[in-house]
């Protein structure tokens, strides 16, 4: 089951924070339970899939698009505070909400809620859910933190091996060049001495020929 608690302000009581809890099984569009509380009283209502479809039809919206609007208004809780207007009549227990678009308000939905006989239980359950969520997220953070530390250690390890490899490659090259130069220069010394010998032999022969 998915659940989300958000803060809202009612047009009728703008100075008092209210809390809206929306809970659904598979998808928001398949129906949800809505709970409203001011920290003292609580009201609860169930919105069925057919009611959602009916609202979407009434608004000439595709059901998916309507559910998306519901999600933004009731679940997401983000965005500027004046994007949505929430109304609740404690007499009729009618909860309704509108979307504000450039000074024009569009009615988004309207649900009947029932006053809860034992609001303390609902409020305790809501606080428990919040504390469980905090623990869950804290555990996830600790796990991610450990993962990150491990990844950083692994990166440092590979980076060190990479740097050693680069140094080793440079050392191999340097060493090979040294050896090559030694061998080649030996051969060049040999060539120089053979040339010298050849010249001397050719010079000697010229002298003998000349004397003869």
């Amino acid at each position, binding site marked *: 089951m998915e659940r989300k608690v958000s803060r809202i302000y009612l047009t009728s009581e703008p100075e008092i924070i209210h809390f809206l809890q929306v809970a659904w099984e598979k998808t928001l569009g398949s129906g949800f339970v809505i709970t409203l509380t001011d920290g003292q009283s609580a009201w609860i209502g169930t919105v069925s899939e057919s009611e959602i479809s009916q609202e979407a039809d009434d608004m000439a919206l595709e059901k998916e698009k309507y559910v998306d609007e519901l999600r933004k208004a009731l679940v997401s809780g983000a965005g500027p505070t004046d994007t949505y207007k929430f109304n609740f009549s404690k007499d009729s227990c009618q909860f309704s909400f509108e979307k504000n678009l450039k000074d024009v308000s569009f009615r988004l939905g309207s649900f009947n809620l029932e006053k809860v006989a034992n609001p303390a239980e609902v409020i305790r359950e809501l606080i428990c859910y919040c504390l469980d969520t905090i623990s869950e997220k804290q555990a996830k953070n600790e796990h991610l933190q450990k993962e990150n530390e491990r990844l950083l250690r692994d990166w440092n390890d590979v980076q060190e091996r990479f740097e050693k490899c680069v140094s080793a490659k440079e050392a191999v090259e340097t060493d090979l*060049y040294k050896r*090559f*130069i030694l061998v080649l*220069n030996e051969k*060049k010394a040999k060539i*120089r001495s053979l040339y010298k010998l050849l010249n001397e032999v050719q010079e000697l022969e010229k002298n003998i020929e000349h004397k003869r």
Partner: protein
Amino acid sequence: CPSTKQHFARQYDCHGDSYFVDTDVNQLKEVFSGIKTPG
């Protein structure tokens, strides 16, 4: 010209390395870089 060709052929091998003058790291690297595809 033929005489210049002959002169260079006497002094250098086909890879541009001198037969007579000792080589060093830089010169050898230059000679190696000129070898296109070593067999």
